[in-house]
């Protein structure tokens, strides 16, 4: 891999990792972690269509993700099914269709990403899309949190909970679509969930939690990209492994701080 491709890969890692981590802090708190993971697989058929008909796979992936989000949102409103159940159904269908129609030669790249194929255009799109996603999330962040704490409380404060939720899920779909090139459809969901889960273990404030999620996301993505050069394997699995190591560290810190607190309480 040449220096330019590596630089582009790192830039994409910085933006996708931190944005996915920031978005994930909301998803993990909403106990929707599995939704983030399953949602990412829905991109596969769209990606395949992009490869087959020679258009930007990001557009194909985003179209499928956005359609899934809107269908899920509508079914959740109009039926008694949970988001997990609805996405669970759509996810297996999308994964099956995706595996059937993706050309065999491109399947591995679609599933696990290929950092060496990131272009300058991909990088520019990723940076702009990430900045847009961060700006919109910042705008709706408080409303999302209040809706998460209590729907009634949110509605009484004139927050349109359903619309805010739809916007949020569309933002997740957007960042998943841009993250596919680096991490692949199978693992991009982990970039949303793992950093946030690690941050939740060691955070006591909301601001600290969202910041740590973004930092852990950035660290996982960038380290994964750099490591992939040395071990010559796709960056996707490495990004997830680094994220999981951070998560394990956070579990250890959490358990250590609990032990210290208990010791202090018993000696006081």
């Amino acid at each position, binding site marked *: 891999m040449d220096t330019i491709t590596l630089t582009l890969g790192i830039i994409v890692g910085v933006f996708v990792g931190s944005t996915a981590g920031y978005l994930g802090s909301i998803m993990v*708190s*909403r*106990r929707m972690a599995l939704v983030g993971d399953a949602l990412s697989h829905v991109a596969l058929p769209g990606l395949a269509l992009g490869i087959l008909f020679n258009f930007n796979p990001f557009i194909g992936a985003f179209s499928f993700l956005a359609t899934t989000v809107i269908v899920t949102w509508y079914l959740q409103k109009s039926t008694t099914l949970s988001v997990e159940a609805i996405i669970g159904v759509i996810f297996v269908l999308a994964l099956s269709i995706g595996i059937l129609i993706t050309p065999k030669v491109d399947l591995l790249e679609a599933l696990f990403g290929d950092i060496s194929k990131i272009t300058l255009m991909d990088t520019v799109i990723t940076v702009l899309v990430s900045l847009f996603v961060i700006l919109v999330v910042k705008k709706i962040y*408080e409303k999302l*949190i*209040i809706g*998460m*704490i*209590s*729907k*009634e*409380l949110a*509605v*009484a*404060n004139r927050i349109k909970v359903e619309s805010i939720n739809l916007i949020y899920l569309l933002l997740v779909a957007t960042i998943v679509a841009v993250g596919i090139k680096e991490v692949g459809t199978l693992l991009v969901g982990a970039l949303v969930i793992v950093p946030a889960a690690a941050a*939740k273990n060691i*955070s*006591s*404030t*909301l*601001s*600290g*939690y969202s910041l740590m999620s973004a930092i852990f996301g950035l660290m996982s993505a960038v380290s994964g990209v750099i490591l992939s050069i040395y071990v010559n394997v796709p960056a996707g699995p490495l990004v997830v492994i680094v994220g999981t190591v951070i998560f394990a560290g956070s579990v250890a810190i959490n358990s250590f701080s609990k032990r210290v607190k208990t010791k202090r309480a018993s000696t006081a």
Partner: protein
Amino acid sequence: MTDVGRGQTESSSHSQIESNNMLVVSGLGVTSQNKRVLEDVSFKVKKGTSLAVVGPNGGGKTTLFRALLNLIPYTGTIKWNDEVRIGYVPQSLVSTDLPILVEEFLRFKRRTNYEACLSSVGLDKAILRQSLGSLSGGELQRVLIAWAIVDNPSVLLLDEPTSGVDIGAEEPIYEKVNHLKREAGITVLLISHNMHVVMHYSDYVLALNKDVLFYGDTKSLTHSQLLSIIFGSEFALTEEEHYKE
């Protein structure tokens, strides 16, 4: 007049409600999963008064609040006064496992008077650095009341605000609400199962069991009469004996 119907309002009348009324509900009906949950409910709430909503479990109390907050479709009319600013205190929170400090939660309101609001519900500002999830039931309810009053609401809707609160901690919460009603002229709508609270802290009672069992002045009833209206005379007599003991 503020008509908050969700497109299923039977009447589209835009006549003014009397200025001394905060809320006028007429012919309210709610159907959920093909079952009638509320039927032909009508009542008024005067400004600066308190109305206790009582009734058996499943009688439609929380459904009424959900309709008043425009959370569910309904038939009939719900008319709030033009100047209404609703402060809502839920029974509990859906998620308290979020790492969020009380201070961060209160800051969402973008007001600077939250320390004064905490003090008005009897909480010290030290609680600001505590996590929302680490609070006791009583502390959480007081924080929720503080959150509701930060915007200077004209109406407080309290859905069983002391459920999950220790018995000893119940009374001070109602005392604080009563104080807010007296000092700030806030109108209070309160759901409660505690008849002692209803008799002591409400001006009017609305007893519901799908339709209206009783609506009127609290002082026109005895404790036993109220129980008899809600649960039948047999239960009321048993309860009365219990109180005598």
